[in-house]
């Protein structure tokens, strides 16, 4: 379905210079690129009317207009009143004003022109500022347009309740609806509510607005799924990550040489893991259309998830008791396979021993700072030396996959919390953030554990992947809501 051009609703975002009109649009349209929408603290940054279509699958469903702000509203109001010759001004006077006053009031004319051509009004104010006469003049002029009007309170600082009340009272008298929309903090639910508000003031275009809301919901759901894909793919790759190097026999015999190779491989492992982290985080940022948010990862500096500090292992991942339960579950499952293989002749001993062994191992490893697994072994002619290869793999801790999961979910939360109207290039940090995996239910942990176990063995069980994916998706949905 493609809307007819004449049925496309248009809303002009208007207001005083530097009240955050462009930032509001940037957040609403998820544009953090200054080449498309310039947001800055410089008054008068927006110099012309810019048409910003909301377009899905090649069809435009709504146009939003970024306009230069009111610069001289009181003088403009007087001019319009003079044109009305004592009567209450209306659209006819505004049309005359547009026609005759462009040279003296270029900004007011530029913003009023689209309104007189049929656009609805989105009036942005900063309620942290005092309600001066200039604002009253702006409201009055906008009221004379007779267009559907929605006022948006975009606080740029702490708002005094009395001032907020004053703003709301005054705006309520001139506008069909008054809503709060913090352009620097609004997330998806707030953006959706804004569209719902537009629906209330502009019923004639309900079909288009509904279509946009459905498309936004669909887009949001797709993003969550894509994020879950990125995270599960990152975890799989990280758990399967191993770095190796052929090792000569003479090096094998000497402890210091072995240690040197181990250190080299440990460094390489950190770099490779950081690359995976960086790629997954960049993917999350791309999914959410963020360009200014920078990941706190630099593979060249081996900077990423810090596995060498106890704090990482303490604050994220599962608690010790949860790890013991997870270890027992994994051990019990492996034992059950044995029991099945021998036709239950073992009378379930495999399951019991496996569970006890898994639980005990998790308990005793629980508090120690894990080292990377190091293995020296032969291969199928893979090495150039005497066939031996040193392989450095994932840390010898059952908590490793959970820490990876937490680190990514924390980054996801950081991305979600960032509004596109902001223009500061912030680093997406995972420090001082609490994790999620400790709050997973037993069933959720079980589903993830099944997948993690296979990945750690470098032999992922594809049958368990969809369940693990669902758990991660549910976590993402919780964070997003």
């Amino acid at each position, binding site marked *: *379905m493609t809307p007819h051009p004449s049925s496309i609703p248009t809303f002009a975002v208007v207001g005083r210079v530097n009240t955050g009109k462009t930032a509001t649009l940037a957040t609403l*349209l998820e*544009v953090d690129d200054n*080449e*498309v*929408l*310039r947001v800055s603290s*410089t*008054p*008068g*940054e*927006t*110099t*012309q009317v*810019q*048409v*910003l*279509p*909301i*377009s*899905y*699958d*090649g069809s435009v469903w709504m146009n939003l207009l970024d306009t*230069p702000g009111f610069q001289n509203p009181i003088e403009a109001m007087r001019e319009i009143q003079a044109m009305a010759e004592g009567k209450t001004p209306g659209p006819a006077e505004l049309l005359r004003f547009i026609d005759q006053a462009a040279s003296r009031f*270029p900004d007011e004319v530029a913003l009023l022109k689209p309104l007189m051509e049929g656009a609805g009004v989105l009036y942005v104010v900063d309620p942290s500022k005092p309600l001066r006469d200039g604002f009253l003049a702006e409201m009055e002029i906008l009221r004379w347009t007779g267009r559907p009007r929605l006022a948006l309170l975009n606080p740029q600082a702490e708002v005094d309740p009395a001032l907020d009340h004053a703003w709301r009272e005054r705006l309520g008298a001139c506008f069909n609806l008054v809503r709060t929309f913090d352009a620097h903090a609004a997330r998806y639910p707030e953006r959706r509510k804004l569209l719902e508000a537009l629906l209330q003031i502009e019923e004639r275009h309900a079909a288009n607005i509904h279509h946009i809301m*459905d*498309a*936004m919901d*669909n*887009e949001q759901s*797709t993003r969550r*799924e*894509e994020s879950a*894909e990125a995270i*599960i*793919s990152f975890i799989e790759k990280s758990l399967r990550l191993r770095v190796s190097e052929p090792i000569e026999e003479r090096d094998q015999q000497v402890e210091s040489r072995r240690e040197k190779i181990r250190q080299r491989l440990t460094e390489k492992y950190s770099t490779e893991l950081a690359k995976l982290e960086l790629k997954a985080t960049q993917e999350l940022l791309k999914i959410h259309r963020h360009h200014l948010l920078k990941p706190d990862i630099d593979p060249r500096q081996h900077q990423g998830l810090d596995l060498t500090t106890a704090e990482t292992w303490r604050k994220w991942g599962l608690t010790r008791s949860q790890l013991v339960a997870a270890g027992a579950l994994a051990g019990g499952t492996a034992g059950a*396979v*044995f029991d*099945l*293989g021998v036709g239950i002749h073992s009378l379930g001993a495999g399951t019991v021993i496996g569970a006890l062994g898994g639980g005990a191992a998790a308990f005793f490893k629980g508090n120690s700072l894990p080292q990377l697994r190091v293995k020296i072994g032969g291969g*199928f002619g893979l090495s150039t030396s005497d066939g031996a290869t040193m392989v450095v793999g994932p840390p010898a801790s059952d908590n490793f996959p959970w820490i990876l999961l937490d680190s990514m979910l924390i980054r996801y939360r950081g991305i979600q919390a960032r509004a596109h109207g902001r223009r500061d290039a912030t680093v997406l940090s995972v420090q001082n953030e609490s994790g999620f995996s400790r709050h997973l239910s037993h069933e959720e942990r079980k589903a993830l554990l099944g997948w993690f176990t296979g990945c750690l*063995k470098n*032999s992922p069980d*594809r*049958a368990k*992947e*969809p369940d693990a*994916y669902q758990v991660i998706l549910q976590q993402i949905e919780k964070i997003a809501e």
Partner: protein
Amino acid sequence: MPERERWSLAELIDLEISLSDEVRTTEPSAFYSQDRSTAFKQWLEHEGKSGTGRLWLSALSLMGNVFAITLFISGIGAAWGCLDRGEEGIHVVLFLATTLGIPWLILLVGLLLWIFKPGHLSVLGQLLLQRIGKEKWEKVQDSLELLRALGWRCATLVQTAAAAFHAGALSGLLAMVFFKRVGFYWETTTEHAMRGFLEKLVHFLSLPWREIAPSLIPKVAETERNANWHGGGQAWWMFLVLALIFWGMLPRVILMCYASWRESRVMKTLSFQAPRHRRLWRLMQGSRRDEIEDRPADGALVIELGGSHARQDALRPLFLQRLRLNPKIWESTGVLDEDKEASARKALKDAPAGIILLAEAWSLAPRQMEGIFARLRNLSAQRRLILYVTNLDSQGQPTAPNAGERANWERFLDQQRGFEIELHFHEIG
């Protein structure tokens, strides 16, 4: 509720191979069914990427047939191999071990490997597949449902081949009985153990028919071979035929049917939940927001005359507020650096909405200005041309020109007939 689309294994292979190359776009969601299975089938038909699946299955079927024929011949050979040519007799223990024991042992080992899935086996499998060099195979091996369906198809073929082995053994046995009129015997170096074992074995193997046809159970004690053995033991042949049917062919046929049923179950319950399926589904059902193509049309090129090193952060707000232009590109002309001059010339050609000539008030050099104006004359008339005159302090901060400087510039511009340029003086400071 519409009936779910049935998939064939060939179609599933086609789908997985098509998805192994990243799909970037699909038809809009309205084009496809809301049921994932049906929608994927529509997509496959729409893409027209079929044929590989049929090819794979033909190759698999051919391999299965060759395997079955080979095993059928092996079965004949195995039966024939049990014949003692000198005495024209078949050693029944050897026959049972070769035609039933070994195939069951292989089945058992296979079952254990399937249950325990030892790691090195999958490594071996991967190495084998790499040897085969099937690039496409490597791409689709993450598809669990395809692997399961293919696995059961292979199991069907293996069981068919195993049944063919037993059929071959049966044929060999019958041929020897009818054409060579062979005898049957068993022999041992132990006094009682073998007899006891054989009696128990015969008792066990004859379980399926012992109630209906007890006459078809041989007497073990009567057929032991001794020095005077010259044939006989004819009671064995029907026993062996029935043993091959009941313990050889029948279980294989049952396993074959089971494998075939499991394959059809997999094909009926395809959930398409692998990552690549989810990706395709999102592409099909998702709404794609189009990027905003239009950029603000107020970008301006600033050309500093004489390389004045003006503070850009100080001038930018002024240009935005007074000139309503956004200074995007800053270049210099009238400088020693040839590269900068070339860059300025190029920027003039690509100039955006407006061009701002930034001149220091004291530096009016008419010939230089006329040269620049000559270049600007050739540009499109759509652009705004502005001459911004200011003075700069030692920090590059703009300051207002004095009255004399203003008068000089105004007089100079008045002389430029036929050339329109806005003249602005810096007013602050």
